[in-house]
């Protein structure tokens, strides 16, 4: 059995930020990640990180309001205010740690415009901000000498009398299973994109933390709020950063019409993501698309500007769609990108299970509500990663380990043994594809009652089939076949929680757009939907009022 004060699951921005802040306070911290830290999906964030810096004449209250409006008034305003107030120091801290950032004429950090915001307050490193920040945090982890269990996969959390006391994990390289006793566990596992097909998310984004939390008794919140990003490449679904539109790109339909002028006269292409994705889908559905896509036109920006600020996405469009954006418009479509919901957590990362924390995309604080603004996710990971680490480090000082021994791994060992012995013939690849396609079809940009009911049935049937997955690889060395099968279990739980939450919300708000109920209903639905597991293993819904402080909900216009 291994022993640590704090075990952090996931080594993306949230996880590593939490590790650094907890270690600074002297806690014995270990990070466990199923991939090496620099392979984490934070690396894929392209456009930037938002902060309203006072010395630039910006105000965090304006950032907060833009975020609240972006959330379609479902975000909790106290948490949003806190995130926006702490944003500046977090960006500066990253700069001090080594992030290079693009600069302005005076040598200060420069900004670019991003969607849904009245000010240009997005700080950036070309179009690979996430990768740049992720590598800087990894450098700091090396400098701090923090322990990382690289390529270990967490199988379950250990819960005793409703408290979390550690985790059971498997060394992917050897198949060895270990119990880790910890006074605090911080979930920082990122999102669940692979629940949808297609998705911009990496193949590792399988909702592990959301499911681990759910199985341990924590509530999931806002799960119906799934972000479709307006610009993903035709075919592969690869992400083209919002920075393209931030730098001035247009969206055109098949009639060469800049259609966003009609839908969002003020913000145009830079309306919030849910709005732009809906407009694109409407254009496509009404016959003004091209082969299921609309066009992203950057030609007027010129080659020099594009190669300086958007070089990676230019490469991506060339590699994955055979289009040079300097010369032609890029065919794009809305694509599943981000889960606003997640394990319900406080601004200090505490979940409803004592000892269990959550930060980053896996968590729902809720600072994104019905729709996240571009470049607020990196901010979310850093602010709440750091705060979780600090809170956990303080908490463990006065906390004893729960009584945990090696037998805590027995269930997981039996489960794996059973999976390997299974002689049925379902394939995880086919099941995941069926699940993902059903989620896209019934819980995509537009939803309705009948479609969602059908979707729920499909998920149920897929869930049954998942019991019969055949694991061809029987070995214990780097058995990715087994890992995918375990991840499939996590994903199916996430899919179900999205589906039941979505079907429950009888209005349209943020990313949850129902064609049968197109209006927002503030009278009944200024509240979050929470899903938790009941004693019989089924799910249970409950509600929590949205926290409204200074900003009364108004009709949202861009």
């Amino acid at each position, binding site marked *: 059995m291994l022993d640590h004060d704090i075990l952090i699951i996931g080594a993306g921005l949230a996880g590593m930020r939490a590790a650094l802040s907890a270690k600074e306070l002297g806690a014995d911290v270990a990070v466990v990640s199923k991939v090496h830290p620099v392979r984490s999906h934070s690396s894929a964030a392209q456009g930037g990180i938002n902060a309203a810096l006072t010395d630039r004449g910006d105000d965090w209250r304006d950032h907060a309001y833009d975020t609240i409006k972006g959330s379609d008034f479902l975000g909790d305003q106290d948490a949003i205010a806190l995130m926006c107030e702490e944003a500046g120091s977090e960006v*500066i801290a990253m700069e001090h740690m080594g992030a290079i950032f693009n*600069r302005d004429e005076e040598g200060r950090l*420069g900004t670019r415009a991003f969607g849904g915001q009245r000010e240009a307050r997005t700080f950036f490193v070309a179009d690979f901000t996430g990768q*740049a920040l992720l590598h800087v945090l990894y450098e700091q982890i090396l400098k701090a000498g923090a322990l990382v269990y690289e390529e270990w996969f967490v199988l379950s959390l250990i819960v005793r009398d409703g408290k979390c006391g550690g985790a059971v994990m498997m060394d992917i390289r050897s198949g060895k299973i270990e119990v880790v006793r910890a006074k605090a566990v911080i979930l920082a596992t990122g999102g669940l994109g692979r629940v949808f097909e297609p998705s911009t998310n990496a193949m590792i984004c399988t909702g592990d933390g959301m499911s681990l939390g759910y199985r341990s008794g924590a509530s999931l919140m806002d799960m119906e709020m799934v972000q479709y990003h307006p610009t993903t490449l035709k075919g592969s679904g*690869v992400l083209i950063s919002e920075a393209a539109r931030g730098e001035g790109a247009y969206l055109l339909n098949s009639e060469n019409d800049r259609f966003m002028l009609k839908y969002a006269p003020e913000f145009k292409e830079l309306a919030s993501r849910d709005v732009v994705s809906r407009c694109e889908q409407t254009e496509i559905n009404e016959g003004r698309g091209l082969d299921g896509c609309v066009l992203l036109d950057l030609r007027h920006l010129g080659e020099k500007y594009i190669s300086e600020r958007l070089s990676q996405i230019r490469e991506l469009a060339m590699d994955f769609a055979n289009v040079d954006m300097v010369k032609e418009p890029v065919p794009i479509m809305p694509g599943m990108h981000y889960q606003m919901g997640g394990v319900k957590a406080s601004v200090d990362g505490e979940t409803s299970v004592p000892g269990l924390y959550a930060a980053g995309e896996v968590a729902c604080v809720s600072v994104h509500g019905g729709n996240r603004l571009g470049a607020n996710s990196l901010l979310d990971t850093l602010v709440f990663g750091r705060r979780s680490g600090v809170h956990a480090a303080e908490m463990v000082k006065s906390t004893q380990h729960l009584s945990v021994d090696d037998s805590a791994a027995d269930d997981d060992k039996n489960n794996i043994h059973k999976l390997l012995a299974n002689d049925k013939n379902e394939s995880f690849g086919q099941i995941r594809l069926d699940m993902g396609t059903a989620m896209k079809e019934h819980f995509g940009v537009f939803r309705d009652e009948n479609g969602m009911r059908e979707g729920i049935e499909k998920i149920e049937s897929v869930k049954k089939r998942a019991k019969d997955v055949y694991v061809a690889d029987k070995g214990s060395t780097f058995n*990715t076949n087994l890992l995918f099968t375990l991840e499939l279990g996590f994903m199916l739980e996430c899919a179900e929680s999205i589906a039941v939450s979505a079907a429950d919300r009888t209005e349209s708000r943020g990313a949850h757009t129902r064609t049968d109920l197109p209006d927002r209903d503030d009278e009944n639905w200024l509240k979050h939907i929470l899903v938790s597991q009941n004693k019989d293993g089924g799910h249970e819904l409950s509600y929590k009022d949205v926290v409204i402080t200074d900003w009364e909900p108004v009709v949202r216009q861009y």
Partner: protein
Amino acid sequence: MEVKFNVRRYDPESTDTVTHFQEYQMDMDASSTVLDGLIRIREEIDGTLSLRCSCRSAICGSCAVKVNGEAGLACNTKIVDSLSEDGNTITVEPAGNLPVIKDLVVDFQPFWEKIRAVEPWLQPEGEEPETEYLAPDEDMLHLAGVVSCILCGSCVSDCTVMEVDSNFLGPAALAKSYRFVGDPRDDSAQQRFKTLNESGGVWDCTRCMKCVEVCPKGVAPMDRIMALREQVMESGYTNTNGARHVHEFTNSVKHSGWLDEKKLVIKSFGIFNIKAMIGLIPLVIRSQRAGKVPPIFHKSIPGVENVRRIFEKVETKK
């Protein structure tokens, strides 16, 4: 189109521990990638195939493998660009210069150790400013090309020095080091130069260009190594074989218009370096047999004054 994947397999748990090739035949879209093919093998044909992959968009650095003998990311290598001359075969092998764990999965520990060895974190001196460090955009932006390194290991896989010398820090770690040396906020250059000047550092690169060729992100590690060499020498480290080699190379061409290879060797190693001189004897004998021994008297080329003028011009420019 019909594509035949020829994949090198290895299973440490099998009784047959030798690597072997396994063929998989599939109908693939021409625009799809090598990774698409590998994923389909894993999901539809053979679940036992192990490989690392994640983002599918060339940013996480997980899927570096050898495609037809050359390293690169499987996710941005297109099928159509990888077919063999006879039409439809693609050979996929694990990345080189790192021990294989299983199939296409290699052990990256030696890779990370070298990254760690260059102390890859910003080391500023003095008090942190209250706001950001001020620096002109151009002083920072030139780093973007190196910062965009995703540590995928393609350069290390195909590095011809690492193949024979496990002590070499290698292109990825050296490029990482350059990133800090070139950062106006970092104050530890002198300390970094000391390490870089040691055995395994910048002087062990043979300039074969392989890392520049295979890098999927345009980081050009070798160019960074060459830039580091200059800075190492400028910082006062001139008493190494490498630095003397550079010095004598320049001198020779400047004075005679071409390279005096005998003198270059002797000056680089130092005439009193008896061990090195003895070590050269077999090379001299082999050269003699191949008729490649340079003439005893090294004469200047006709028009050498033009060469000298070029040198003068370049030197005054500096």
